[in-house]
């Protein structure tokens, strides 16, 4: 079915935005977990889209690996907390360099973009159902 292509495209877009949401949630969840001084610990992640949407248009199938999740090279955030069990000699505790503002913005972007994909899919669906009304109740 030719509408299948549009559905596959929107599904791929939704998949990508969902990955973005997952990554942002993961970053936010790790934001306040201190790292052991000897351990490298958690690096904030980011989604890099390597989508081949044009290929989807041709084949009409959903290709699951759309974006890759990569670690962002962000320095750790050092917080002065003397007496903390994980503090180093100077009393600094290392937290992952997660920027909450960036994560909130990427959450909102993911939400809006997901909504846009749903809107495109709903339009295609409405079009298909409207097409089936051709010739009904002349």
């Amino acid at each position, binding site marked *: 079915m030719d*509408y299948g292509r549009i*559905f596959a495209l929107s*599904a791929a877009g939704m998949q990508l935005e*969902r990955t973005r949401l997952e990554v942002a949630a993961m970053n936010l969840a790790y934001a306040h977990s201190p790292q052991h001084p000897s351990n490298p610990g958690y690096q904030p992640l980011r989604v890099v889209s390597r989508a081949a949407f044009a290929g989807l248009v041709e084949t009409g199938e959903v290709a699951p690996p759309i974006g890759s999740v990569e670690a962002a090279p962000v320095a750790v955030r050092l917080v002065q907390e003397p007496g903390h069990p994980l503090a180093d000699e100077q009393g600094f505790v290392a937290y992952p360099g997660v920027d909450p503002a960036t994560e909130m913005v990427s959450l909102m972007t993911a939400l809006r973009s997901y909504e846009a994909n749903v809107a495109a899919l709903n339009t295609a*669906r409405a079009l298909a*159902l409207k097409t*089936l009304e051709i010739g*009904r109740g002349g």
Partner: protein
Amino acid sequence: MEAITALGPQDEVPGLPSPAMAGPGAGSLSFGRMVSEGLQALDTQLKTSQADLQHLALGEAQNLHEVMIRLEESRIALQLALQVRNRVLEAYQDVMKMQV
């Protein structure tokens, strides 16, 4: 009348195996087969979306949007089958009402 008989061979659906190749009397059979194959494809699609719903209820679904998209696809396929049925039924009733 000749014009009508000249039109005769053209009432086959293009792109399908011609009834002559499928043996005598296969013209009506091939339409029936077409319908039953279409119904079978629709049935498979509906069963797939039902299985998707079961996975969803069991919490095994990988992602929600693909379940919803398959549901919508099967809804459209069902609507299409219904429309085809309506047209066929209308044509049948028109033929039955014909005064010969």
